[in-house]
């Protein structure tokens, strides 16, 4: 769960934050404004100031809030004048919005408030759908609502061009005042403010609802508040029933609004939906008892808590946030439940966790045990967190005696705080003026404080206009939001600060921005940490520990004693079901896993337990993967060198599955000697189920002789001729292949070939296959000669046949082929026989084929190219649930979850199913996914749209293709680690748009769907979704709040790393401060661009490429070591007719993937370079089920690896300068792969 903040106001009106990952209250930068009330959701805080005006505080966003203003300039062609600004009366405005309905005259487009700033001037957009336009940017059309083309045609009667200008919200991380209701701010001040509604069912993401109450008890609703417009547009009055004087308001994340009245009753707002944010009407709810007046209310997602005037706490039964907009019952609930404890204020988080302030001690309390099943919780527990006290605070003087010098036990304290000199000075100061009035020291210090403030002229000038910025503190906000970097230099001016362990009297707590997982509570509760802390240093504990350790003297006197319980050998057995082919039919079996000291065996027995079905040594296992379907927990075990190459096991429960997964994985890890942290040169891969695997790149060193020389010796004795075998390496210049064998007695001719991959050409939707042979050596005994030749795309070339046949029937021979830059040199029995000029690039030769009468003994290959059989890589599992993992040369590795959370590998291992010693440094991880089903309906003349379809129609509840039946009840969770976090909801954000009820219309199934019902539409569909979340563990540390969709890392030098990322909106970002010692870096910096990107990749830190949402490729220019961010983007046209969606770059070239899964390659730095297409070939398609194209590409220094959408991993062979696209694929295991990162390898 991401770290989030709890907000509080102390008795002085200062605002404090407490991070869920931290343990200390930190003060928000004080800018001379006290606050009375706070209401917040993540990143957005609305507050009621001491002056009873409203302030907004936007914080913790890495991506600036930018709005692109667009304005189309329209012109019409008039016979004599040509294109003219004079338009027909029926035409649109001269400057208009895209659809022409709104006047967008450039001069009238102004900044909405002083909180915004323009970024640059108006500019022309010079591209249309990724294709470049002329310098004036005009696009032409026949008439206005029509298709626009980049070129003027004879029929073009109108043209338009797009002016764009971006504005930025500049009041980030500072208080921004909202204009008062009247010119005289004191005429009608506010008395309450609340914000919520960030998850209204079906609403656009980013919508926020703000309500306020004025001192005249009028209720105001703020229109237009969203993440793109944090301060909203204006206040609108919401009428209340006669005789109701509203005192306080609260809004939940679902948009549910409750108000408490002065007379103690409550009102509920009915009808808050995605179409009507401010609701329809009020419904009255009585207080809990005759003399119990409701004073304060707080609302979560599905719970309402209230405090009455006698400080009692009440819980409202029967509230359901998701349905509250449409159902009065669910909004108003059905009864009050009394809670124990006297509280003066409650505050509920968006996930229904409850905080409160004690009525008597004014401490902050947390309600323990609140869960989905038990919304009222168990008991109140008080928070204990030290408080940061600025010296300007009067509390500091009150509590100065309690200041503690933390230098001794500063385990959690920022490093710099250990120097308590500031506090010491100050104490001296106050001692030196004992006769002075008590307020004096504070005043003096405050003066100093102000002085530093004056450097910032914006501070202390709270202008009473809309959106004026009260004060900006760029430095301090980081201390609040990046508590993990406690040793940074933020507290350089530390004499201003101190830490006090005293109980601050709190006046307000706001939990809205805070997300608490009741199962993993933050470190806020003194009992656990402090008790343990104190316990650890207690003399009695130390004594006990020392005594325990000294029970046996340390010398090895007893080392030869036998151990009573032998833990090194064991047998694990159980029942399961097995499938050994691709039929998906599982049969019952008994499994036995035996581990004796260093060797393991898995035996699969028939259910009778006697006869063996399958048995193999655990040495054969290269990967143990989960391949569950919902409801059937399954494991696949890959043993590529024996038949069948993969077996799948099904278990009766998830627990069984994890147990077996754990045993099988630990054994195979032990066999492959994989332990500890992942090696820095590892290849990381992720499966479609989100599991993370690592292949230790050092393992390949086994056949490495030195940096540029690999060797493999293959025993060919017993291999039947003819055969073809993969060499898993290319015969690049420098390669020496030596083959030993024996010619048969009665042979006429035989052939030894160095083959390349076949060429496939797509003809009439079928692949035509053409063989390629780089070197064909064909001794013919009857003619007494040796023919040398090459075959290129199925055609033999000219034979070279000079020289005699040096092979002798019935005799042993040794054939040596040496590859040079220009030719092969062939030696027979150590004597040079001939040379053979290259006709195909030698790098293409990746296979050996042998035919005819001979026997081979052995093959020895020495080559500068990497010898790597992708089938034989051992994939070691790591915990976590991720969608992609990216790594770089220095071993710094990042992951991205399905919910777009970024994670950093923390050098631990284990997690997920691994327990005990097999896990180290693992953290809890959460991720979420949506399940989707489509509801289909057909129109008929009598009843309109119904779920009765034609017999030929698709299922009325189906998947997106309509081929599979999917009903909502049948959708099951994948495993016990998953749970539902929402109900089935209509998805209003389907591509193509939807109507009010979420329907999309079409002429017929399958077709393109549109939002508005038209006369010809006969069918409609809508999408339902339900969100589920997984809870697991893994050696990953969460990075921060900003969600990312893609990330790429490249080392800059031996220490620092350049990290590029894409935020969910497609904005490019660069992470500062990433190095081997701080793999998480410091913060994101937004790299401004008008284009939204879909993928990004840096090959080296200087080579950064991205693909835009429009399908173009972009290259970053001007990157230097001292300017990692570079200067500008260069748009590169996509291949003809293709839209790129993913790009991977490296020294091996620019490799890109289009939306249909085709690969395109180009070489960098060559002028007039074009994209070359790499067709998917049948070899790659056969390996995975239902593969139609590629899913992912990873280009490295020399290597290019890919994953098909059938889950097969492939390694590209034969890439060389002459042929940058390579020749063919070497297949890995069909491991249901989804993503792979090879940047650290090589």
């Amino acid at each position, binding site marked *: 769960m991401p770290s989030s903040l709890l907000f509080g106001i102390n008795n002085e009106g200062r605002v404090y934050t407490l991070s869920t990952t931290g343990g200390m209250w930190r003060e928000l930068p004080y800018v001379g404004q006290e606050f009375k009330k706070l209401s917040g959701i993540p990143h957005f805080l609305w507050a009621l100031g001491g002056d009873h005006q409203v302030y907004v505080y936007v914080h913790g966003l890495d991506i600036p809030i930018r709005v692109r203003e667009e304005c189309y300039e329209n012109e019409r062609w008039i016979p004599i004048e040509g294109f003219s600004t004079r338009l027909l009366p029926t035409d649109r405005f001269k400057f208009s919005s895209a659809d022409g309905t709104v006047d967008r005259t450039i001069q009238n487009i102004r900044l909405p408030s002083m909180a915004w700033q323009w970024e640059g001037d108006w500019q022309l957009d010079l591209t249309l759908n990724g294709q470049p336009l002329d310098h004036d940017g005009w696009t032409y059309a026949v008439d206005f609502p029509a298709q626009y083309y980049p070129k003027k045609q004879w029929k073009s009667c109108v043209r338009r061009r797009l002016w764009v200008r971006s504005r930025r919200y500049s009041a980030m991380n500072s208080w921004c005042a909202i204009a008062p209701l009247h010119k005289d701010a004191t005429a009608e001040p506010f008395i309450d403010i609340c914000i919520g509604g960030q998850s209204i069912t079906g609403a656009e993401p980013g919508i926020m609802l703000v309500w306020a109450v004025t001192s005249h008890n009028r209720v105001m609703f703020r229109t237009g508040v969203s993440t793109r417009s944090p301060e909203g547009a204006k206040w609108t009055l919401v009428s209340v029933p006669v005789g109701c004087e509203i005192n306080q308001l609260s809004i939940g994340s679902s948009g549910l609004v409750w108000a408490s009245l002065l007379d103690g009753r409550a009102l509920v707002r009915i009808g808050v939906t995605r179409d009507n944010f401010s609701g329809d009407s009020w419904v009255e709810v009585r207080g809990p008892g005759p003399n119990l007046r409701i004073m304060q209310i707080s609302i979560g997602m599905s719970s309402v808590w209230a405090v009455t005037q006698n400080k009692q706490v009440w819980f409202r039964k029967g509230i359901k946030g998701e349905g509250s907009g449409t159902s009065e019952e669910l909004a108003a609930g059905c009864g009050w439940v009394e809670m124990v404890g006297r509280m003066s204020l409650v505050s509920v988080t968006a996930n229904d966790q409850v905080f409160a302030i004690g009525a008597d001690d004014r401490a902050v309390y947390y309600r323990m045990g609140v869960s989905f099943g038990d919304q009222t919780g168990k008991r109140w527990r008080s928070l204990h967190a030290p408080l940061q006290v600025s010296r300007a605070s009067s509390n500091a003087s009150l509590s100065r005696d309690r200041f503690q010098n933390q230098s001794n036990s500063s385990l959690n304290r920022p490093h710099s705080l250990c120097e308590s000199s500031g506090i010491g000075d100050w104490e001296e100061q106050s001692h030196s003026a004992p006769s002075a009035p008590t307020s004096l020291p504070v005043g003096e210090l405050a003066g100093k404080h102000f002085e530093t403030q004056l450097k910032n002229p914006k501070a202390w000038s709270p202008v009473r206009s809309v959106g004026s910025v009260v004060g900006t503190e760029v430095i301090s906000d980081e201390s609040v939001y990046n508590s993990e970097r406690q040793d940074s230099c933020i507290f350089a001016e530390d004499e201003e600060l101190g830490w006090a362990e005293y109980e601050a009297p709190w006046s307000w707590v706001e939990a809205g921005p805070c997300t608490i997982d009741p199962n993993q509570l933050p470190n806020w509760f003194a009992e656990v940490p402090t008790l343990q802390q104190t316990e650890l240093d207690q003399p009695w504990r130390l004594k006990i520990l020392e005594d*325990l350790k000294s*029970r*046996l*003297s340390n010398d090895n006197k007893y080392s030869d004693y036998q151990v*009573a*319980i032998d833990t090194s050998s064991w047998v694990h057995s159980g029942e399961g079901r097995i499938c050994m082919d691709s039929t998906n039919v599982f049969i019952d079996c008994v499994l036995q896993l035996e581990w004796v000291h260093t060797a393991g065996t898995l035996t699969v027995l028939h259910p009778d337990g006697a006869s063996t079905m399958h048995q193999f040594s655990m040495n054969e296992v290269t990967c143990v993967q989960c391949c569950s379907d919902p409801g059937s927990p399954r494991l696949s075990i890959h043993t590529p060198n024996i038949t069948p190459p993969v077996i799948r096991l099904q278990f009766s429960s998830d627990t069984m599955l994890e147990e077996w997964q754990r045993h099988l994985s630990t054994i195979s890890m032990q066999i492959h000697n994989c332990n500890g942290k992942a090696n820095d040169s590892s290849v990381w891969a992720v499966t479609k189920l989100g599991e993370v695997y690592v292949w230790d790149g050092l393992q390949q060193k086994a056949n490495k002789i030195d940096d540029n020389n690999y060797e493999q010796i293959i025993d060919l004795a017993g291999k039947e001729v003819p055969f073809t075998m993969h060499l898993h390496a290319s015969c690049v210049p420098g390669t020496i292949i030596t083959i030993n064998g024996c010619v048969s007695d009665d042979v006429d001719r035989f052939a030894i070939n160095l083959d390349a991959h076949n060429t496939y050409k797509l003809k009439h939707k079928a692949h035509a296959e053409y063989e390629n042979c780089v070197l064909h050596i064909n001794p013919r005994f009857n003619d007494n000669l040796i023919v040398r030749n090459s075959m290129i795309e199925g055609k033999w070339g000219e034979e070279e046949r000079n020289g005699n046949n040096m092979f002798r029937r019935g005799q042993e021979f040794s054939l040596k082929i040496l590859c040079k830059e220009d030719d092969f040199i062939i030696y027979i029995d150590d004597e040079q026989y001939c040379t053979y000029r290259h006709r195909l690039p030698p790098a293409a030769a990746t296979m050996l084929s042998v035919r005819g009468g001979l026997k081979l003994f052995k093959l020895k290959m020495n080559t500068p190219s990497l010898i790597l059989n992708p089938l034989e890589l051992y994939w070691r599992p790591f915990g976590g649930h991720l969608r992609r993992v990216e790594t770089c040369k220095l071993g710094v590795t990042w992951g991205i979850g399905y919910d777009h959370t970024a994670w950093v590998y923390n050098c631990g291992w284990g997690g997920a199913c691994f327990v005990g010693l097999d896990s180290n440094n693992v953290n809890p991880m959460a991720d979420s996914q949506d399940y989707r089903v489509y509801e289909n309906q057909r129109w008929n003349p009598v009843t309109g749209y119904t779920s009765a379809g034609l017999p030929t129609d698709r299922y009325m509840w189906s998947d997106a293709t309509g081929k599979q039946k999917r009903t909502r009840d049948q959708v099951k969770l994948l495993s016990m680690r998953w749970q539902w976090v929402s109900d089935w909801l209509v998805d209003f954000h389907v591509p193509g748009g939807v109507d009010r009820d979420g329907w999309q219309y079409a002429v017929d199934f399958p077709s393109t769907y549109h939002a508005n019902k038209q006369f010809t539409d006969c069918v409609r569909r809508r999408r339902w979704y339900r969100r589920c979340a997984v809870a697991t563990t893994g050696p990953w540390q969460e990075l921060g709040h900003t969600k990312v969709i893609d990330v790429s890392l490249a080392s800059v030098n031996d220490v620092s790393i350049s990290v590029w990322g894409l935020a969910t909106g497609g904005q490019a970002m660069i992470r500062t401060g990433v190095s081997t010692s701080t793999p998480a870096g410091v913060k994101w910096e937004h790299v401004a661009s008008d284009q939204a990107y879909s993928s990004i990749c840096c090959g080296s830190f200087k080579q950064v490429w991205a693909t835009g949402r429009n399908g173009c490729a972009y290259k970053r220019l001007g990157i230097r070591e001292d300017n990692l961010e570079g200067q500008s983007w260069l748009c590169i046209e996509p291949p003809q007719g293709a839209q790129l969606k993913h790009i991977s770059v490296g020294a091996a070239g620019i490799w890109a993937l289009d939306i249909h899964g085709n690969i395109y390659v180009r070489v960098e730095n060559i002028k007039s370079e074009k994209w070359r297409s790499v067709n998917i070939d049948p070899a790659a398609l056969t390996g995975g089920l239902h593969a139609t194209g590629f899913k992912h590409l990873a280009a490295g220094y020399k290597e290019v690896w890919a994953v098909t959408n059938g889950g097969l991993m492939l390694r590209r062979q034969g890439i060389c300068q002459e042929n940058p696209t390579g020749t063919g694929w070497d297949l890995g295991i069909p491991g249901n792969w989804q993503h792979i990162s090879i940047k650290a390898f090589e």
Partner: protein
Amino acid sequence: MANDREILREIWEGKIPVRFTLYPDEVYELQQPDEFYLMVPRLSYFPLVIDKVKKHFIRYVSNDKNDQEMWLEYDGQPVKWHFPIGLLFDLLVGTGPDLGLPWHIVVHFEKFPETQIFRLNSKDLVEAHFMACLKEADVLKHRGQIVSSMQKKDHNQLWSGLQNDKFDQFWAVNRKLMEVSGEVDHFKYIPFRIYDIEGFYKQKLVKPVSDEGQRKTLNDLLMEMYPKRATSVKVLTHGMFPPLNTPLQWMSEHLSYPDNFLHLCLV
């Protein structure tokens, strides 16, 4: 919550070197059997760890005796099967740096002392005894709510964790038993047994906190048990003397044997 893994691990790893010899009168073969040396875990029970000992010595006794039940003797006394090994050692040998180590135990196959020790001829019996103790302890701590809410497989995991010396396996379940539930942060009563020199034990309902809510210490426990001579006694457990100011709740969470009892030997 028992969360001080360092202590828990140290307790779990506690082992005693034992030298087993066969009672000379029972040797049937001409050749005297070799002594047998074994490191036994303090937390385990003898029937779980002496399979190897039995295998070693059984060749040397007469054939008609070797189906008889094996029993152990130390210092002329038969060793009680049903006590944890660490407790037996603390009771019978005491402590000191390498005092009485290796522990010399004599193995018998004849003349089972029916009157002095129980017959515990199968591991199932030990398991039953272990589970009974565990349940009793949970009744004292949580009114038995936790152990009864556990499933059979949890019970099995506890037992096999102990049997196979798997710390994590055992503690994955045992931590639930060591948690405090409800509104309070301590157990209802502390499950403990105090043994005197003769091996008889006393047991009493003792709360981990005083009526005023103060945390009780080991000293308070001794005062309650032996009001007259509390100052003059020490208790030995796991081969060490816990300081008198050790909190009882902490002791129960960290120093209990796997059966969830504190087994304290009065010295």
